[in-house]
């Protein structure tokens, strides 16, 4: 899935190279989610999802980028974010998407939990090449 960016709106690009960048990502996503008029609960869910994925990009992907912006598809409007890294990739996706499974010292809720928090979730990964995750939340 390529992110369904709204026509004429340029998504913003942020680096994810340091722990403080994760804070920046949350702030950017928050602004976008408000502009797209997501409900308060949906804003909260989407920012939380972005926070989980940005941390994974940093910790497991060895750093990368986030692109985030307004999205549009079939008359619906919302906000999309793409987390990309050129890290080790995920060898066993099934396992990684399992609640509670972590290869590090995490809680193993980032991927599985995030998927529950968003409307669209797409994950492309290749061992040795990297991981790209796209999430979208639509305004209701």
């Amino acid at each position: 899935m390529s992110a369904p960016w709204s026509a004429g709106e340029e998504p913003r690009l942020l680096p994810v190279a340091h722990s403080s960048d994760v804070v920046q990502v949350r702030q950017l996503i928050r602004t976008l989610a408000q502009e797209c008029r997501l409900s308060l609960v949906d804003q909260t869910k989407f920012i939380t999802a972005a926070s989980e994925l940005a941390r994974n990009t940093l910790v497991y992907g060895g750093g990368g980028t986030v692109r985030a912006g307004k999205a549009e598809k079939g008359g619906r409007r919302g906000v999309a974010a793409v987390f990309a890294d050129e890290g080790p990739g995920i060898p066993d996706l099934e396992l990684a998407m399992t609640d509670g499974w972590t290869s590090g010292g995490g809680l193993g809720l980032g991927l599985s939990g995030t998927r529950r928090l968003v409307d669209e979730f797409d994950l492309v990964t290749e061992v040795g090449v990297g991981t790209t995750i796209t999430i979208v939340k639509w305004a209701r």
Partner: protein
Amino acid sequence: MTERVPILRIGDVLVVSIQFDLEDQTVLNLQEDLAEQIVARSARGVIIDITALEIVDSFVGRMLATIADVSRMLDARTVVVGMRPAVAITLVELGLSLGGVDTALDLEKGLARLRRSAQAADLA
């Protein structure tokens, strides 16, 4: 350089009010500072006020659970106050129900909770 969250004291209760979006390292520092202060100040209770927090992700959620466990081992009780409804919904959906974490609506109710449990302990 990471910031440190200030820890206040009201009687034998430590109060932490998280006022801004925390970096992960700051979260870990807070955890360690609190454990140290519980012992250094013989605290019986800890209140973590998250009224200002717009989101609690799994990292911060885990800190809350850890602080609750650690403080129990150091003979203090932790109450988390001010959790927003949207945060509660999100945490449950994320899969983190914080079963071992005691909560109250606000600081006042949190303090009252700790006071009652201290009385109960003194009677026991």
